[in-house]
Every structure is written in C-alpha cells, then in structure tokens.
C-alpha cells in the first residue's frame, strides 16, 4: 500500500509542479501570461488539429475495422497487419518522411494527415477487438428483424462499439495534444511545441510553465469528457457457449472502391514513409554510414529502454496487485492517479522534472535516474494494465490451494504467484521497452549531456535538414518496433497472456 502510494505520488509530481507554479505566479501573472493573442492562436491551432485528427481517425479506424472484421473484402488478414503497421513508425519519422519528400507540406492539412495516419491504429485496434467481441447472434437477430447492413451497423454494432471507439479517440486526442516531434518538424505550432520553444528561449520561465498548465487543462477536460460520454453501461454477451463464426457481408460492386480506400490508407500511412526512408537511407549511406556512432547510439537506447522497463515494471507491481486484490476506493484512487499522471504530455513531465530536480536535488539534474523517472511516469499505465490483467488471471484460490498443500508464504510466491504473473510482467516490460526506444520529447529535455538515443540523434540530424544522416536512426527504430507491432496485430482479441488465459476449461 505504501509502495503504491509512493508510485502514485511520483506520477503526480508534474501536475503538482504546475499547480505550485501557478500559485507562485499568482492570478495577475496568470492573466498576463495566459490571456494573450499568442495563446489564443495556439489554442485554435491545437483544438482544430485535435478535433480534426479525432474525426479522421474514428472514420478511418471504424471503417477499416468493419471492412476487415465484417465484410468479405479480399485479403483481410493482410490488410489487418498493414493497418496496424503505422504503429511501428514513430509519428516524427512519418512527419520527416513527408516533409523531406514534399517541402511544402508544413500546413494544417499536412499536420492533420501525418497525425491522423500515425494515430488511426489507436481507434482501429480497439474497434477490431470490439467487433470480435460482439455476439454475431445479435446481428443475425437484427437482420431477422429486417434491418439492412447499414441499419445493423448503425443500430446494433455502433452502439456496442461506443466504449471501444471513445477510448481510442481519447488516446488519439491525448497523443495529438502531446505530439511534439512530428509537429515541430512540420512547423505547425501547438501548445506542446510552444512550451518547448519557450523552454529553449527562457530555459524555465513561468511562461513555459503556464503554457504547460493550459495544455494540462485541455488533457483533463478530455479525460472528464470521455468519462461522461462513456457512461456506466456495460455490454456483454448474454448466454454461455462459444460465439458462432461470423458470415462476412458480401460487398458486390462495392468491393473495388473498398479495396481502393484501404490501399490508399495503407499507401499514405505505410508506403510513403517507407519509400522515403529507403530513399534517404540510400542517399545517407552513399555519403558514408557512421556505423560506430549508430551502434553506440543503439546500445545507449537499448540500455536506457531496458533500465526503464525494469524500473517501470517494478513500480507497476504494487499498484497492479492492489487494484485487483485489495479492491476499494484507496486502490482505485492510487491506480487512477498513475493514469492521470501519464495523461500529462511528455513535455510537461520533462519540464516539471527539470525544475523539481534543480530545486530539490541539484545533483540529479540531467542524470539517468531523472530520465528513468520521466519514462516511468509516462509509461506506468502500460505496465500496470498488463500486470493487473496477470493478477486477475491468478485468482487467490491458487494461493489457498498451495497453502493447504503445506507451502509457506515465500514458497507460494516463488512456486505459484510469480510463475503465473511472469508472462504479464514480461509483456508489460516489453511494452515499456518499445515505448522508450522511440521516445523523443522527454529524452531531449532530460538526457544527460553527451547521451544520445536513436530518437534524439535522428532529431538533431533531421532538424539540421541532414535527412540522409537521420535515416539510419529511423530505420533502426522502425526495425526495433516492428516485432511488437506484429504481436499487437495478432493478439487483438486475446490478451497479452494467451497461455495463462486458457485456465481450467469447465
């Protein structure tokens, strides 16, 4: 309980920092810093980008999910993998791929295209999972009652997809709010890029903090809106037994347009970035590839990612455990505070940790522990979700049975609990590891001087318009992310624990 409270407290440091700073600046200061034309401009920019991206992602994600899960469009498995594939390419790499091909791409349309294509899988994946979880019998019943395919979609499937799609839309919105690299490269100013510029200009004036405060408020508004919209209604398959297989809807004359639409999405989100990367890779290597630097950078990145994975998973264990085994208001509060903490954009977390470390423990400023703390705050929910699922898979019953067979508490931990949790803990650590490999924003601000990761090396090269030199780092990042993406595309409806999930079958 104490451990979980400490973890929650760590996760809330950035929010606390903003509040403390706001109080320090005072109401007059806030009015002066926040209510000015520049902030209004940023607000408009940010809101229309977030709104546009959510709409595009929901349309693309739900439409593609329906085609793959419920229609007879040819090659559904291949399309599925290709539609998830953008997750392997960090948004700032996609952005780089486009701007380096089309220098005039730095417009609202360009920004909208890049973030929508990068984040559409956040809606697509939960929508696919929800489609697979729907009872086809409901759809058959609706058809039996005389509904058309469109009617079934609108009146039966869509209401049941609501929770999944809302969750996905929230993820898209939060990611767009926090997106730094992609938008900075397209020179599209939002709060996040403005906070960074402000920070670079004045190091850490109240200006940056107050902008960050507005950004955090936007995040909180989104979280609250999602909770309100989601409501408390649950949908579950009634009745036991396995769901029957789905009979896909024949598209007939619409097959060609459907294929064309899917092909267009995949071409824009996967093919263009890859072609661009390959092209720059060729250009870059012709100028001579610095293998040593690339290897060192990769090594540093992997080491940091591994350390962050271990630290974050260890932090996640007490919270994930409590959330299942000691259900109650306190455990829920502790779990939610870690989620809240990481809904805050990376730029804000980094900014807060810079200030807090300078004020409280100057020796820690720009050291690996602070960077790891930032990673932990950012990625705790990924680890907690998987640990939590694993704890749910290992009911206390096994502990009781082991006790009745004479096993002591440490023996039970070693022989029963840990083996059961291991796959979940491993999956959580892997998710954190992969997220850290492509993390840019917090790393830029917090990495010790002289420490470069793949993301920051890529960033400095591409910021200097050395597109060829940047390409190899991007390629390594994509290659490192690819395996996890393939796994994700496979395990949509199962969870991360295929083995442990199959418990005793009655």
């Amino acid at each position: 309980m104490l451990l979980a409270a400490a973890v929650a407290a760590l996760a809330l440091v950035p929010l606390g920092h903003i509040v403390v700073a706001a109080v320090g600046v005072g109401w007059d200061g806030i009015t002066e810093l926040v209510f000015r034309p520049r902030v209004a401009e940023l607000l408009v920019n940010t809101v229309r980008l977030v709104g546009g991206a959510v709409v595009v992602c929901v349309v693309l994600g739900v439409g593609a999910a329906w085609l793959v899960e419920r229609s007879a469009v040819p090659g559904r498995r291949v399309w599925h993998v290709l539609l998830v594939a953008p997750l392997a390419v960090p948004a700032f790499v996609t952005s780089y791929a486009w701007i380096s091909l089309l220098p005039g791409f730095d417009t609202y349309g360009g920004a909208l295209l890049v973030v929508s294509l990068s984040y559409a899988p956040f809606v697509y994946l939960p929508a696919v999972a929800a489609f697979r979880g729907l009872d086809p019998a409901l759809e058959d019943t609706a058809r039996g009652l005389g509904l058309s395919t469109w009617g079934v979609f609108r009146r039966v499937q869509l209401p049941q997809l609501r929770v999944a799609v809302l969750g996905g839309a929230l993820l898209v919105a939060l990611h767009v709010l926090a997106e730094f690299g992609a938008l900075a490269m397209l020179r599209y100013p939002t709060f996040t890029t403005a906070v960074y510029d402000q920070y670079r200009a004045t190091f850490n004036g109240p200006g940056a903090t107050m902008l960050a405060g507005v950004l955090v408020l936007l995040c909180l508004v989104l979280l609250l809106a999602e909770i309100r919209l989601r409501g408390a209604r649950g949908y579950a398959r009634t009745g036991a037994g396995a769901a029957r297989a789905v009979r896909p809807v024949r598209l007939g004359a619409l097959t060609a347009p459907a294929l064309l639409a899917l092909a267009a999405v995949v071409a824009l989100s996967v093919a263009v970035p890859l072609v661009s990367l390959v092209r720059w890779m060729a250009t870059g290597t012709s100028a001579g590839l610095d293998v040593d630097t690339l290897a060192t950078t990769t090594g540093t990145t992997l080491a940091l990612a591994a350390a962050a994975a271990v630290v974050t998973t260890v932090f996640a264990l007490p919270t994930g455990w409590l959330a299942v085994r000691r259900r109650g208001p306190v455990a829920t509060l502790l779990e939610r505070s870690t989620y809240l903490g990481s809904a805050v954009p990376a730029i804000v977390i980094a900014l807060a940790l810079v200030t807090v470390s300078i004020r409280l423990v100057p020796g820690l400023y720009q050291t690996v522990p602070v960077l790891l703390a930032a990673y932990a705050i950012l990625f705790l929910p990924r680890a907690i979700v998987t640990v939590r699922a694993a704890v749910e898979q290992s009911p206390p019953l096994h502990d009781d049975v082991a006790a009745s067979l004479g096993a002591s508490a440490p023996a039970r931990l070693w022989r029963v609990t840990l083996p059961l949790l291991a796959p979940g803990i491993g999956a959580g650590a892997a998710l954190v590891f992969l997220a850290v490999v492509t993390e840019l924003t917090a790393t830029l601000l917090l990495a010790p001087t002289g420490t470069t990761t793949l993301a920051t090396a890529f960033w400095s090269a591409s910021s200097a318009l050395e597109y060829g030199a940047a390409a190899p780092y991007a390629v390594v990042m994509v290659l490192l992310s690819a395996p996890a993406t393939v796994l994700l595309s496979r395990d949509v409806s199962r969870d991360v624990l295929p083995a442990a999930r199959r418990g005793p079958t009655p």
Partner: protein
Amino acid sequence: MSALSVTGVTKSYGRTPVLAGVDLHVPAGTTTALLGPSGCGKTTLLRIVAGFDDPDAGTVELGGRVVAGAGRPVPARRRGIGFVPQEGGLFPHLTVAGNVAFGLPRRLRRDRARVASLLELVGLDAALADRTPHQLSGGQQQRVALARALAPEPSLVLLDEPFSSLDASLREDTRRAVVAALRATGATAVLVTHDQAEALSTADQVAVLRGGVLAQLADPRTLYRDPRDLDVAAFVGEAVVLDGDAVGGRVASELGELVLGRACPDGPVRVLLRPEQLRLSAGPGPRARVCAVDFYGHDARVELELPSGRRVSARTEGGDLPLAGAEVSVAVTGTAVPFPVGTPSGAPCPSPAPAPA
C-alpha cells in the same frame, strides 16, 4: 485419518452474520456432505475448517488438536488438509504431474511412480501426467485436483462443490471415481454441495445448513424419510404435504387414512409423504385430476390436483401413464411423517429411536 469437530463456530462479514453457531462432528474415515442453499454459509464453514478464514468465535478440532479457537489459529499449511476447490483450481503453469506432486516433499516430487499411483487411485490414466491442465476435460481436472489433495496424505479432505461445474453425464462418473478414491484411502472428507441428490448418494452423513445454523445432521436415509421439519423435508427432496387430524397414530387425510411413522399426540397435524409413495390406478379410492405429466424415461412425475384444489406430485414408473386431464385414483404406500400444527417452526414429534442407517 482423524475426526473433525466444529463447536459453536460463528462468523460475520461486516454486519452480515454468515455462521451463527455451528456444531458439527465428522467421525474419522467417513464422508459428510454439507448441504444448503446458496448463501447459507457452507463455503464459509469449509474455509474456516481449512484455515483460509478464522472464526469469530467457536473452535475447530482436528484429530483432537484445536486448530482454531484457542490461541493463535494454526495456519492452513500446517493443518494437513487436502482442499479440492470448485472447478479444480489446478495450477495452470504446471503439468498434471507437477500439480499432483506439488504438496510432496521436494525429494519425492520427481517420483513418477508415486504420481502414477495417485492418478490411478482417482481413475486416471498415468499417460496424462505430462499434459497441462487446459488439455484436460472438466472431470479429469477434478480428479487431478483430488489426487493433488490426497498426495500428502492429509488428515481431512475438503471438497467445495467439486461437481457443480461438470455436465450431467460427466458428473456421475466423476462423483463415483471421487467416492471410490476417498473410500480407498479411508479419508475423512467434507463435501460442500447444494445438490440434494449428490449429498444423499455420496455421503455417510448429511449436514443441512440453513441460515447459518445446522438444521439437521443425519445419515441420508433418516434425513430423507424422517426429517426434523418440513423445510428440511422440502429441501432434501420433493414433498407431498397434507393436512389432517391425528388420532391414535392414524390420520384421516384427503388421500384416505394414513398410518403415521412415528408417535404423535392427537390433534391437528400436517403430514409428509414422498411422491414415490403415491400409486395411481383406475380402481376405487380417493380421486385426483392429472394436471401435467413429465416423462423422464426411467420414470415420470405426474402432477395431480386434489378435490380441495391442493396440488401434489406422484412419481411413477414410466410404463402406463395417465393423460393430462384424466381422473385417477390415488393410493398411498408406507407411512406418513407427522408434524403437529401450531408449534412455531413445525417442530417434530419425538422420534421413537434414531433410525438405523
């Protein structure tokens, strides 16, 4: 194998009392079924005996040793109790052999012969030893769970609704295999169930738990034929209840004059018959109208309406069945059990002597 004695055990969760003073004695080497509706506290009692929960008051004695109630309770792992949970609770990360050998001392865990003999004891093929739990059927999982519980030679085996998750067809086989294994090891066993047929057919004695207290503890035949009150009677099987006046060991009822199975003071009584005591014929006798017939193959249940409007059922052989709407005459075989009217909870007439099993 040792006897289990539970004395005055109470337990509440928050303000909800679950057990309100339960006394139960299970002689060594016998099987007792704890029977009761859902929420009557039977699983709580089982968990207290196992040591997963502690009683608020009262004692639990195992083979003459107090394990809960006086001083610190003995932890579950030192009680030497085998526990078979609902749905088996096999460790999903271990093979069948790993599960069965879990409670054995370290040097015996690799003893294949030991595992094989335990599997054989519960009627399983030793070739299953290397399977993982999810490759087994529900019934096989239950048997492995029993083998695992029996492996360390426990002084008492507790089974928590072990058959309730199985299909009807699998349930009979599994139940027989479990009973045979328990008998073969001479184990003392407590079996929790809400299925009265399972309790009556499996156990040496049945403890009916109701509202957190023991309503009756008896061998199955006594419980069925001579229940303490009408609630217990209705719980352990279908009951035909009639009103009448007792005079000198006989009762005049709607179904004619019935002989009482135990002594009872003269006066108004309600009497209990079982559906299989009712015989239907076309001959003379009290009349009834057939409302419905449920045909099961080996027998049938006929629902009858008596002239007073009271509905009763009769269980008859499946051969020559009346049609719904027909008039039949009803004869009664055997004796009826009287419960004097006016006593609060239908307290029984004093039994002449405890009926032999």
